[in-house]
């Protein structure tokens, strides 16, 4: 035990003297979550949505089509559309929405006549990326209308003539002819036509000072982002620590230790313990940051046991990677790719609901899944130890198995002189 403490103490002292890599990894989840929070702003939803005001001065079928598309079920996840009157500008000035889309009078008729029309978008820069989302959605739909108006130019002219004031309603023959023309136009049209018929004018309001509730909005984003990113960062910390065994091998200090009165197993165990201690310290830092930012209490027993199980998984995974790699660069490359894939599949970067079904099906294979969902259960749903027992069991089991495998591989390498 004394030797193990000596080994861990030496490694921690070295890390304290050269902490840059660790600090970067530790700051990563906080900075990442903070940037996401700044980008999205928030209205308090779990998934922030852009709030788009639409001032429809046209009221024609093209404007209706645009509004209908913006309100479709699929886009509803991204944007909340509210039709407003002239008060839209005033509401934008108050910072009540992400953007205001103005559909000008005569939009439909001009579109049918093939004349250029202009849509105006006023953005609210205080809401980060949300106005951009709203504008881009409107642009995409406008492009669809634009392309459609060009492709269907002939039929539209016939429809336009029948929509003018005092015009005769279309006969059945006219309707059939228009339908056939639409079909032919679709079959023969080029995919992209230019210049666009519909143009956009974009304006931004002056940034408004943050409201009193901006702190809680940021907290909500942290709530969504922080657990998963922290789990990812913790695996990076583990990788950084376990990589040291290969770095020591390269520097010759491992060889020197192996020439001393300690076995290869003790050395590997020492490095695993160092990895665990460094992960624990890192988790402590992240927990403090999380507590300060999120201001939420969690079940302490659940948090502690989940953290210990996660640290076991982190240590085991990194030991296995470096037991197989036996080369610092190879190990770092394998680790980086593997952790990225596992984190993506495990829902550390995005909510599991946002993942494709095929990826969701394999998520439980990733230890990141069990770590991330465990912390989310504790933090978001105020879950208890009982709620996360499966997470703890899976992480602890997986960690123990991988630690045994990684320890065996590293010990074998040390015994065969491959690490020396």
């Amino acid at each position, binding site marked *: 035990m004394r*030797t193990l403490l000596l080994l861990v103490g*030496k490694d921690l*002292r070295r890390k304290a003297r050269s902490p840059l890599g660790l600090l970067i990894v530790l700051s990563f989840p906080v900075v990442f979550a903070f940037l996401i929070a700044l980008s999205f702003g928030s209205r308090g939803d779990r998934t922030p949505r852009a709030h788009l005001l639409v001032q429809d001065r046209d009221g024609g079928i093209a404007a209706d089509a645009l509004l209908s598309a913006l309100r479709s079920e699929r886009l509803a996840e991204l944007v909340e559309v509210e039709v407003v009157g002239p008060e839209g500008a005033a509401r934008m000035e108050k910072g009540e929405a992400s953007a205001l889309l103005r559909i000008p009078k005569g939009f439909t008729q001009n579109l049918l006549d093939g004349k250029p029309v202009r849509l105006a978008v006023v953005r609210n820069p205080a809401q980060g990326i949300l106005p951009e989302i709203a504008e881009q959605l409107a642009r995409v739909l406008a492009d669809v209308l634009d392309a459609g108006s060009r492709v269907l130019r002939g039929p539209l002219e016939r429809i336009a003539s029948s929509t003018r004031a005092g015009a005769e309603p279309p006969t059945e023959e006219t309707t059939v002819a228009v339908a056939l023309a639409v079909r032919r136009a679709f079959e023969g049209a080029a995919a992209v036509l230019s210049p666009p018929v519909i143009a956009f004018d974009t304006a931004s309001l002056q940034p408004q000072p943050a409201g009193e509730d901006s702190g809680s909005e940021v907290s909500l984003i942290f709530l969504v982002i922080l657990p998963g990113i922290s789990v990812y960062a913790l695996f990076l910390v583990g990788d950084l620590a376990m990589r040291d065994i290969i770095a020591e091998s390269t520097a010759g200090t491992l*060889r*020197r230790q192996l020439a001393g009165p300690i076995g290869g197993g003790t050395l590997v165990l020492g490095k695993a313990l160092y990895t665990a201690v460094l992960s624990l310290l890192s988790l402590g830092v992240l927990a403090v940051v999380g507590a300060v930012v999120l201001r939420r209490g969690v079940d302490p027993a659940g948090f502690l046991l989940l953290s210990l199980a996660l640290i076991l998984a982190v240590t085991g995974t990194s030991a296995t990677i470096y037991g197989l790699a036996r080369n610092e660069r190879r190990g770092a490359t394998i680790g980086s790719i593997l952790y990225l894939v596992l984190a993506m599949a495990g829902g550390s970067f995005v909510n599991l609901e946002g993942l494709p079904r095929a990826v969701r099906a394999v998520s439980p294979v990733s230890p990141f899944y069990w770590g991330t969902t465990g912390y989310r259960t504790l933090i978001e749903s105020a879950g208890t130890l009982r709620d996360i027992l499966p997470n703890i069991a899976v992480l602890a089991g997986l960690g123990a198995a991988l630690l045994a495998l990684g320890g065996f591989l590293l010990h074998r390498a040390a015994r065969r*002189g491959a690490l*020396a």
Partner: protein
Amino acid sequence: MSRAIMARVFRVEGLVKRYGDLRAVDGVSFEVRKGELYGLLGPNGAGKTTTMSILSGLLEPDEGRVFFDGVELASDPIRVKAQLGVVPQETALYDTLSARENLLFWAGLYGLAGADRDRAVDRALDQVGLTGRAKDQVRTYSGGMKRRLNLALGLVHGPRAVLMDEPTVGIDPQARANILEAVRAVAAAGTTVVYTTHYLEEAETLCDRVAIIDHGRILAEGTVDELKRRVGEKEILTVSGGFEVEEARAKLAALPGVQVVATTPGKIVLSVAGAGKAALDALAGVLASGLDLDGVEIQPPSLNSVFLDLTGRELRD
């Protein structure tokens, strides 16, 4: 050389280590006595470091056994290694720690604690002249200082025997002299030292006994004087000039008592059996051979001439 030479400490029997088809160590056997400074002299790739790695328990031999004080290394490696100090060829140090912190760690690893450990560290720092820089991080040290600390790490726990693998490679003459002085002091204090080198003068001036090793085999072993006596009845003549090597070889090999040891373009090394008149006769024969000569050098007996005689190559080749 006044140290009392006592019972054997190391006994090495028939070591073999293969890497694929290469036999890096090919049947090496030797003994080292207590308090002795034993040298393994050979060129790079001779098998010195592999032999040292086996002695220090880092490598398992494919064949053969190593005994330290009667205990077989393979049967109780931890016990044996606890009594050894190792000074590797590369400077294996923690750059971000100070010299004192490095020494404290290694002393602790060998079981020293408390005041004993502090005293051992102070003694080791003093031994290599680093007391004044003990608290500085190693990364601020010069190459020579790192080498001295590298040596101190192998001595800090007061080992009964120290394995030093070319501890003076790649350093300036001043730092080299400091290290050699420290090695002499260690041996003078009664610590057994096994020392590998490819520097002839180090082996000649430092070692009580020397084993000449090449291609994984020990070719000769003994004190420097004993080894020199092996070629004592021979003279080594190095003949250089603008001659055709094959023509010169044929002419010179025909001289009485002369054996061609080695040839390189423009140079032939001869071994002449018998000293004195035989060497003069050979010299006269060389001069009368009609070869285009630039010079003839007669070497006094040295470890280099021993190596040359044994291998047909000069050690510095």
